[in-house]
């Protein structure tokens, strides 16, 4: 029973599916779970709003892809790609009030069983009020998230096969930027 909870490459969608766009990462993970293009042997999980509790699912992976809502202040639906060090750089200087993705990444640095490559794909939310569905802008961005995740997974698979190093973000598919700007990207943050 000491089997690992996950495989070498793990995708975790995080966010709260009852807070509208906050759940975009989980929605994307669910789409990936049903997508035949996902390379074999990849574990895809709905991480909900768990933080440190995801450690057992992530600590044995050598490649970890996190999908989440990320507040960049850009137009809703804008897709962002970050590495682990990008996320840590954003959280170390300012107070971490959510024990979320940043803390998971920080804890992984302390307990992971091997060196890990961690990528976060984030989507700018339009609306994080109570509600079980995505805003039109973020819903429209969902296929781009799925494609970007697939591109990342393919890259990892290829680099594994070729035993190569890292992957430049420019290889990711481009998305259209036809989104309306939003005056207050995340209203609750400011209350």
């Amino acid at each position, binding site marked *: 029973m000491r089997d690992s909870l996950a495989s070498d490459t793990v995708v975790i969608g995080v966010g709260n*599916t*009852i807070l509208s766009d906050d759940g975009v990462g989980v929605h994307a993970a669910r789409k990936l779970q049903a997508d035949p293009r996902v390379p074999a042997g990849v574990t895809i999980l709905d*991480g909900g709003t*768990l933080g440190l509790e995801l450690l057992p699912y992530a600590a044995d992976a050598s490649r970890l892809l996190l999908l989440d809502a990320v507040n960049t202040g850009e137009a809703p639906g804008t897709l962002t790609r*970050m590495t682990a060090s990008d996320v840590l750089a*954003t959280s170390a200087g300012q107070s971490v009030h*959510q*024990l979320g993705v940043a803390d998971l990444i920080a804890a992984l640095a302390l307990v992971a069983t091997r060196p890990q490559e961690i990528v976060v794909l984030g989507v700018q939310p339009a609306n*994080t009020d109570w509600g079980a569905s995505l805003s039109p802008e973020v819903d429209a961005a969902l296929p781009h998230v799925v494609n970007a995740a697939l591109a990342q997974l393919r890259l990892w698979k290829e680099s594994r096969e070729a035993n190569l190093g890292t992957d430049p973000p420019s290889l*990711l598919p481009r998305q259209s930027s036809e989104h309306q700007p939003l005056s207050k990207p995340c209203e609750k943050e400011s209350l």
Partner: protein
Amino acid sequence: MARIVVDPVTRIEGHLRIEAEVNGGLITDAWSSGTMFRGIELILRGRDPREAWIWTQRICGVCTMVHALASVNAVEDALGIEVPDNARLIRNIIAATQTIQDHVIHFYHLHALDWVDVVSALKADPAKTSQLAQSISDWPKSSATYFKGVQDHVSALVASKQLSLFGAGYWGHPAYHLPPEANLMAVAHYLEALHFQREFIRIHAVLGGKNPHLQTFLVGGMATSLDPNEPGATVNPERIDFLLEVAKSAQAIVSQLYIPDVLAVAAFYRDWFERGEGLGNFMSYGAYPQGSIKDPANFFLPRGIILNRDLSQVHPVNPENITEYVAHSWYEYLEGNPTAKHPYEGETNPKYTGPKPPYEHLEVDQKYSWLKAPRYQDKAMEVGPLARLLVAYASGQQEVKALVDSTLAKLKAPPTALFSTLGRIAARALETQLLANQLAGWIEELGNNLATGNLAVHNGQNWDPKSWPDTARGFGFFEAPRGSLGHWVEIENQAIKNYQAVVPSTWNAGPRDAHGQRGAYEAALLKTPVADPERPLELLRTIHSFDPCLACAVHVVDVRGRTHARVEA
């Protein structure tokens, strides 16, 4: 007089703001403001009550399963369904696992750094640290080489400027009193606890499916297969052995690390047995049925209320006496501010009337929080591990009484010392010990049922909506890691008509009510000393001792104004 504002309070789950008035180095008044806006009923209205738990487990970012459990309890109460013994046991095992996990994370990863100075640990002598560790515990990892390794690891983190989890501390604050060796020992155990919790939560993976969110709750029981002869069954003899092994690892880490560490830290901070005492009213709904859930008298942790720190009397809990005020909360009741409403009649009409951000101070005479103010018979209550332990102690629960008395003897402290910031920390540790012991017992009971052919795990009676009355209502109580959790459901024409949840942190972190009575955090902060208003470490100690959780809020990673790579055309 100075007004200090801590916003957000760090190292908690969720978003909390505290404003406090400081006079002559002591807090003379305090206001707690939570930014959680609760509105689960907006999502649940019209849905099938049998699937409510799937939605409610998304309310909280951390203890997802407690909302699933409270929800199935509420719906079972409304529909008059009793669950089989195996379902009761599996629920107890899952819930105790969650609480043990949460308490260990709280002490080591959220709270210890209020007492432990990570930077001071770098100055420790590993050999002396080894002597210290061996003098308080027989935990095997205690050599000088081991502590040297931990020290090097932390040095490297500090040098890399990626302090990560250690980034938000007031290192060097005069209120830190531990010698460097105790600091190094605690930092080492911080890492041990991270490794432990990684392994421990596998109990949930076994009983709940290989998914961070448990998939196996079911109105009427559990969707868990029990079969003594089937290797593919969720519960079979091999799995029982595995669960027992994990439970024993929890007993070991609690008795060899958690409890000795709490006692060691407490010895250097004895003044904190006299600080942070708070309301003096404590409530527990009771948890972990040993028989029918309808009879709280059989619960492992009893139901009851203690008033005015009087441990000679335990008052009953009558669910009818629970109400919520919005006099200082950003909501409107149709009948106006002074009214209090029972959750069955609960309304959630948000109306923000606070200052426009960015602002300096909240309008604390008016409304100042997104949390409502729950009250029991118009009294504010503290909930959580200390409340549970005190109710059990005063009820004469034998295991609790023995453990509390022996611990107080070791600390050379009277029972009144429990009404304090350190009392909350000690109570949480002792509860973890009690539950870790009990966990193995429940797993063995499950194993016995399996061996004797008692395999029922779901009661299908009243599963079919055609068997339901036109209207029904029920409540589900549970003691979540952070305290009393209640879900109230009203069913009409086979669908949810209204749903309300009153969560532990609303009891503890809620604002004043219509009578101006403070909530639990607000009361506990009174008379807390603050040496340096710019770095209010002492305030955080008392607030963190409650294990604040307001993670029912958004989860967005905020990187505004920071370096990030954009992917776009």
